[in-house]
């Protein structure tokens, strides 16, 4: 029993990140890139690593209002991510639609399509806010693995 708990706490220290751009204006994506990829806001110290394939991912960061054109693709990529997984909505667009709210090309906020665990509001959010969102996602990830 103790070994299982030990293994669980070890596994919880290795969340790999994956980014989905669901019709974003690229503002949040630039902030995400500068969060993990530059030395100043290094998230690798939390054990995170950006991975290229959705099949390696644990924490999904989704930017942009989910447009009608990408809705099916977002669902398909989301279903390719192996369980357990945690979803983080980055920026105001996936949370409420932002300035695109009630547009004919937006089939609704992100949480009406896939379950969202953490919201990081802002247009775009500051890198510190994104790191806080990742840290909150880590706490949820610990309970799921």
């Amino acid at each position: 029993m103790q070994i299982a708990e030990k293994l669980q706490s070890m596994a919880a220290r290795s969340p790999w990140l994956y980014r989905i751009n669901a019709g974003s204006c690229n503002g949040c994506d630039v902030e995400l890139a500068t969060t993990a990829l530059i030395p100043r806001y290094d998230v690798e110290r939390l054990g995170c690593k950006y991975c290229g394939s959705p099949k390696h991912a644990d924490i999904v960061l989704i930017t942009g209002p989910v447009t009608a054109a990408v809705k099916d693709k977002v669902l398909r990529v989301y279903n390719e991510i192996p369980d357990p997984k945690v979803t983080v909505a980055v920026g105001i667009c996936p949370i409420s639609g932002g300035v695109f709210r009630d547009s004919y090309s937006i089939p609704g906020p992100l949480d009406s399509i896939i379950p969202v665990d953490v919201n990081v509001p802002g247009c775009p959010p500051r890198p510190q806010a994104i790191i806080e969102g990742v840290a909150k996602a880590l706490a949820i990830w610990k309970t799921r693995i």
Partner: protein
Amino acid sequence: MKELFSYAFHMLVFPGGVFALCLGLLLKGVDRKVLARMQRRVGPPILQPFFDIVKLGRKETILPASGHTPMFRFAPILGFMGMMVAAMVLPIPGVWNGAEGLGDMLMMLYLLPMPALALMLAGSSSSSPYGAIGASREMILMFAYEIPLLAVILAVAFKVGHATGGVAEFSFAKIVEYQLQNGSLIFDWTMFPAFLAFLMFIPGTLGSVPFDLAEAETEVLEGPLLEYSGPGLAMFHLGAALKMVVVMGLGVVMFFPGTIPGGWITNMGWFAVKCMLLMLFSVTLVRAAMGRLRTDQTFKFYLKYPATLAYVSLGLTYFIR
């Protein structure tokens, strides 16, 4: 029966198996930490590769619907087992004598490309276009780096063979014994070009940054590993960790297998330190300093510089007895 048990112990626990896995994952952790410090950031904890492996073992496995499923499941095991055997064959100076066979160096030459072959199988059986591109790139890379490796190994074999009165010596135990008596080959000026060629060979065979074209995240999304998830991916990472130990150990055995006074424990630590130093200079420093090369540039690089250096050494060992 007793012999069988001892073989199983050597393969699963001491020089292969548990010991080599722990050393390999530790080397990977040190690599990531030192790279982070070179880029002036904090970096992950040194034990991060262990955490990654444990986590991947607990994840779900997703199989590609249109792939060749038996091959897809078999490929990671092939690379992992090949490296387990290679870790058992390789001697640790002052601790373990290796296979003590006549031609274990040639056996190593056939075992070393096993992870690359596993990657090719994985890429081509996953039914993903990125996987197929990754597999073909891995094949090109393998053709490029095998030639300098062959020349380096022949240079070392001829050098030790001539010195001990024969033609060529393909036994690791004899090579280590010769160097323990007559000084390491790295201090021999005729072998220095071969050592440089081996340093250039290391990042290619490990697929680290200037030559990571098969797994390039930004181009082919990790290539052959794209469709793997959970335990299969963990197996590939374990195989890569074992390969790190085997390649660094090969460098230590061929060029500087000196021992230090003390028992087998101090010598094991000395071996680990030498592996780590070789890794820092050939993998981490290069990874921090360079960007990725194109496929054609990689191929030309390997056939121009390391191959020339290794052939210079081979010629010198032939003419200067």
